[in-house]
């Protein structure tokens, strides 16, 4: 119930922020609403027990990307609070197409039996994070033994909540403690994400250099015109 309450709060904030981004014409306000929307998405991630992901969302999106976008707005604004207005007809067409797309998506979501599909997916432990929680459960044996059954179950539930840092880290190192060993086939270990992780690292470096190169100081077209006029 609490979760539902929180979910609806943040879902409304998310959707409202997104719609506000679409509806607003001023870029800086769009950025503000985008912050609201993305921050709420981070909250949704916390609700989905993905703590690390939520923190990453805050750090990278809200703290990084949006700041970057606002930076871009400042660097490309030719006057204060520039608004480049969309023609009303386009807005209406866009809204219509968007609604149709939403309908398509919603009907798709509704028409799929996710449980059945989940069953068809490769089998995995019922709770994805048992490996870690079992270890911690052993460590907390003393606490649990001294407490009531209610505490015990609650604690087990808590321990399943959001403790994904270690698993994520290990999976980036190529290890999957949450997976059954037999899934890895003859090699004994389930595959992790070592290679994608490294590729992404290099990719980031390349992007860093590439973006710096692209955005380097250049003579602007107008200055050339001025030179020619002089």
């Amino acid at each position, binding site marked *: 119930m609490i979760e539902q309450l929180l979910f609806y709060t943040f*879902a409304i904030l998310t*959707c409202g922020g997104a719609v506000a981004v*679409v509806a607003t014409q001023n870029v800086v306000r769009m950025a503000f609403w985008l912050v609201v929307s993305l921050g709420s*998405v981070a909250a*949704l991630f916390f609700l989905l027990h993905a703590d690390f*992901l939520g923190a*990453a969302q805050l750090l990278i999106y809200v703290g990084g990307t949006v700041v970057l976008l606002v930076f871009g707005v400042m660097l490309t604004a030719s006057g204060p609070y520039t608004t480049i207005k*969309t023609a009303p007809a386009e807005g209406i067409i866009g809204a219509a197409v968007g609604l149709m797309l939403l309908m398509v998506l919603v009907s798709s979501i509704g028409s799929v039996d996710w449980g059945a599909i989940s069953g068809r997916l490769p089998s995995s432990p019922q709770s994805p994070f048992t490996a870690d929680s079992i270890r911690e459960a052993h460590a907390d044996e003393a606490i649990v033994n001294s407490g009531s059954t209610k505490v015990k179950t609650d604690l087990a539930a808590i321990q399943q909540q959001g403790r994904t840092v270690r698993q994520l880290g290990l999976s980036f190192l190529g290890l999957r403690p949450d997976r059954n060993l037999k899934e890895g086939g003859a090699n004994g270990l389930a595959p992790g994400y070592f290679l994608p992780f490294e590729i992404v690292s290099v990719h980031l470096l390349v992007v860093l250099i590439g973006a710096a190169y*692209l955005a380097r100081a250049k003579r602007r*077209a107008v200055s050339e015109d001025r030179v020619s006029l002089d």
Partner: protein
Amino acid sequence: MGDVGLNAYLMVGAVLFVCGVVCMATKRNGIGVLMGVELVLNGANVNFVAFSRYTSLGLDGQTIALFVIVLAAAEAAVALAIALNFYNNHLTIDVDRGNELQG
């Protein structure tokens, strides 16, 4: 504690996605288009994490979402650099002015 369920999250993701698409389709400001891209990616991320929680996708969903976030950051950096170049060349950020490839 009651559970919200997978479909609710998917709905949120769908709304984010559609808003992103419409944003991309209607905004004439290049930065606005970038914001639309971010929305679309976040819609996808919400779906991934929701699947990670409610289906046997498990940890993979979170991992992929993490990759998406990282790549989105990279994309934003490059796209912003492109937008700055666009601004340098056209003296505006209006993407409708970049129609040199018109047939």
